[in-house]
């Protein structure tokens, strides 16, 4: 274990690792906040679908030599806007439409990747993440998004929360539901895209869903849920990065498994606590 820690300390001297670490911290905090909304809206599948669809955006970006993060962001936001529109036009449920859009987007992504000239090792790193691939641009993207969240959240959090929890009550109070839906979908799409380099499209949903589930098991108030979820998210990310470096394993996968372990321990802890009656 001391070797793992030593290796981690040695790596801290490298700028790529500092970048990855900072990206991980920012992503953990962002996903911790957006994940609470995703969890209370029961929109886990939506996050998953947006993440998988981002692959098409990445491939299209690479095809046209545009920054893949930028094209993935545009694609994910466009998908977030398309969904409510399609729902209104067809009357189908979100789940059905997501099940339709997810394979189409994934297919589009794989086709676009196959059309790129030469061997494409990028595909795997976009699917499962790569600590080394976090760029300066990704950092600016994450910092920008964090700034947007810091500004928006105090203004909109409670109204966004009401829309997420009880749409009828929000409507009765005169809130403009589509505007709040749009804000949530934007934040979700951009958070998902910002994590694509580090953890990949397949595993990003672990960031959004596992931490709020862990906290929901023990929290007694919304306040606790909102404050503790980013903390659990941060522990998952930092723990995952340390372990992935120490054992030379894929970062995204280790973070997801580590977060899953925290969940299992949390369930066992809750069971014991309920039995003892504390």
């Amino acid at each position: 274990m001391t070797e793992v820690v030593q290796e981690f300390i040695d790596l801290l001297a490298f700028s790529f690792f500092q970048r990855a670490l900072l990206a991980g911290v920012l992503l953990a905090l962002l996903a911790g906040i957006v994940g609470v909304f995703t969890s209370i809206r029961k929109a886990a599948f939506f996050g998953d679908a947006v993440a998988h669809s981002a692959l098409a955006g990445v491939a299209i970006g690479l095809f046209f030599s545009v920054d893949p993060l930028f094209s993935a962001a545009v694609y994910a936001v466009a998908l977030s806007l398309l969904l409510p529109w399609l729902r209104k036009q067809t009357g189908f449920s979100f789940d059905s439409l997501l099940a339709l859009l997810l394979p189409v987007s994934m297919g589009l992504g794989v086709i676009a990747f196959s059309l790129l000239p030469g061997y494409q090792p990028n595909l795997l790193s976009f699917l499962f993440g790569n600590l080394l691939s976090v760029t300066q641009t990704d950092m600016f993207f994450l910092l920008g998004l964090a700034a947007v969240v810091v500004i928006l959240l105090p203004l909109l959090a409670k109204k966004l929360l009401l829309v997420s929890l009880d749409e009828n009550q929000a409507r009765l109070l005169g809130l403009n539901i589509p505007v709040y839906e749009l804000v949530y979908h934007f934040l979700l799409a951009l958070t998902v895209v910002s994590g694509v380099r580090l953890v990949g499209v397949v595993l990003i949903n672990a960031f959004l869903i596992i931490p709020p589930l862990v906290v929901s098991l023990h929290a007694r108030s919304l306040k606790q849920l909102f404050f503790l979820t980013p903390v659990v998210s941060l522990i998952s990310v930092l723990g995952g990065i340390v372990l992935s470096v120490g054992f030379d394993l894929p970062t995204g996968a280790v973070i997801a498994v580590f977060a899953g372990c925290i969940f299992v321990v949390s369930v066992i802890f809750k069971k014991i606590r309920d039995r003892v009656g504390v």
Partner: protein
Amino acid sequence: MATTQSKTNRSPAISVSQLTVRYPNENESVVRNVSFSLDRGKIGVLLGPNGSGKSTVMKAMLGLVEFVGEVQFAGQPLTSLQNHVGYVPQRYPIDKSVPMTVSEFLELALVTCSHTKAEKNRMIVSVLEQVDLSLKRFEKVGDLSGGQVQRLLLARALVHEPEVLLLDEPEAGVDAEGELIMYDLLQKLAKDQKVTVLLASHEIGLVRKFADTVFCVKNTLVCSGAPSQVLNQSTFKQLYGDGMTMYGHDHHHDHHHGNHE
């Protein structure tokens, strides 16, 4: 302004005219041509079996479903009276696995208010006292009993001090004692604070005891009037069919209510 004011004073607290609701992709109207009115400080009940459209009438009145017709509260459409109408849904609308305290639940009902945090706290304390949930303020909503949750929903509807209260089957999931507490509270609100109360219900015994006016609904308005005039065998057959018999009973509340359908 003076004209609006006088119109508001003269108008009934609730006025529904030719209300028709048809859901998309359905040929038949769920509710058709329902018209009724209710004066200030009165308790009215939309009575009918499950699927009769009474909840739909209520949702249409609140603008939660699209409808044809006219709905007015004290002579004004709902858009201008958002905080003067309180609504109690049939069930707690939020997944109980979401951790939330009683106080946080009520705070969410105040998100559009410009009051200070201290004022909002005062409003919450006051409304919890009104529904006898003061001691539960920092409890998790998921830990409350059915009756307490129903009173919490009532507290949310009352936090804006509404002039009109709409309640969709407030007895759902509540034990007999909880029902009685709820109905006593509603009677007090109507009598002391002149709040106009409209309930959707199928509990004939409670309706007989607490309602000033009954509106019998089976997709359309079958009949209306005072409970003593309306609640008879012929109305009951119209609502629930030939095979069923009406049984009225005094409420001792040592039992649980079953459906009368």
